[in-house]
């Protein structure tokens, strides 16, 4: 048994490590960039809603549509449709770098909705209190909306990250690299079940670590 495992890792060890690293690079980079863009969108959708800080029906409706359209396109289709965009932004539509563009664009509307959901948990009371003390809209966004919902935003980020790991496996189908790519190339095309199983185990471990880290962190900073 041990010998079989040793032989397996001698043959596929490097490949699996590289695949894991590629998956982590793709998903981490896309999550970070998606949050840089998704947080402002989520905030704007929230504050332009009727009765909120800066009601603006037109902005609210247009952003809402864009987010919904983004959310309704299946990732596999987005992936193919965005090939020219990836070439333009990342210089290539191939490999790990090329996959970051569709992963990010696919994640932005998802992140915007997650952020919107987290901000909605902040009831009107604290916002009104901040207004009553002369806080500006920008101060209310940073010091109340985002700060008070931080534990929830962190839980949302873990969900996004894990969702993107799933997307990155789909991106593997068009040569993005990573664990998904390995599972398809070795497990599916070459019927090497043991490689398939190894990638599944690795994905489970990665997802578990992300989920536990986010649970611990959000619990630690949540003072409610």
């Amino acid at each position, binding site marked *: 048994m041990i010998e079989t495992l040793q032989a397996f890792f001698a043959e596929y060890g490097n490949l699996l490590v590289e695949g894991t690293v590629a998956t982590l690079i793709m998903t981490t980079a896309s999550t970070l960039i998606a949050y840089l863009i998704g947080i402002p969108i989520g905030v704007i959708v929230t504050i332009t809603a009727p009765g909120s800080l800066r009601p603006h029906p037109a902005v609210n409706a247009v952003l809402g549509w864009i987010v919904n359209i983004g959310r309704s396109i299946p990732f596999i289709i987005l992936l193919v449709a965005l090939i020219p965009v990836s070439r333009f932004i990342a210089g290539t539509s191939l490999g790990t770098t090329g996959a970051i563009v569709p992963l990010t664009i696919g994640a932005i509307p998802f992140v915007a909705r997650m952020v919107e959901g987290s901000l909605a948990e902040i009831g009107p*009371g*604290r916002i*009104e*209190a*901040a*207004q*009553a*003390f*002369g*806080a*500006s809209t920008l*101060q209310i966004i940073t*010091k*109340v909306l985002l*700060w*008070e919902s*931080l*534990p929830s935003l962190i839980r949302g980020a873990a969900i996004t990250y894990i969702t993107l790991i799933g997307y990155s496996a789909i991106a593997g189908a068009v040569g993005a690299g990573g664990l998904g790519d390995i599972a398809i190339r070795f497990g599916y095309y070459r019927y090497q079940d043991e490689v398939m199983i190894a990638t599944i185990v690795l994905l489970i471990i990665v997802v578990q670590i992300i989920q536990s880290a986010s649970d611990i962190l959000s619990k630690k*900073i*949540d*003072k*409610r």
Partner: protein
Amino acid sequence: MIEIRNLSKTYDAKHIQHEALCDINLTIDDGDIFGIIGVSGAGKSTLVRCINLLERPTTGRVLIDGDDVTDFKGRQLLELRSRIGMIFQDFSLFAQRTVLENVRFPLAVRHQDKQESYKRAQELLELVGLADKARNYPSQLSGGQQQRVAIARALANSPHIILCDEATSALDSLTTESILELLRDINQRFGVTIVVITHSMDVVRSICNKVAVIDDSRIVEQGTTEEVFARPKAAITERLLKTAGDHD
């Protein structure tokens, strides 16, 4: 002095106009503890929010110390609000900030010196008797303690007006007594004008020197607390008086 002149507020909700406030006239003098009493939905919360313009009056004027503030916007509005403290029924403390940070919040939004503002926040916590809770979070405090923190926060900018929106409605009667005592004490020591929104005649009797009774969006009666209690004119006042406990 707060003067409210011919103030009305109407909400448009799907072609049906709802009149929340109708032709309100009030004068609140410096140093008053002014009660505005009415049943739920009478419009009293909307009225108090017109004073710091959290709600915009549809018509009418709001004057503070002789200045017409009704159309204040931008910096001017933020400046006005920071000079008026406010406390709320549900305390509205920031759950993810320490007690000290909560009290410092009104100073932080005005970019006041960090060290100075922490010192001021600590002094205010001493004033409300919670100096030892500075590092705690609101969730670790009782309702009465949370409202004390909210009062300290409302005092941070040394306001000359404090608005209380049902400040004791979520508290038991003993805690209510101690919060009212604190408000009375603040009124006497600093000469702060306090506007008290309530549905309880007991609260009015306990701390207000003047009272206005609001019913169905209109002021139906106002005067000194003594007058109104001794000779109520409106039917709603009599009804509110009947529900009050007998403390005499």
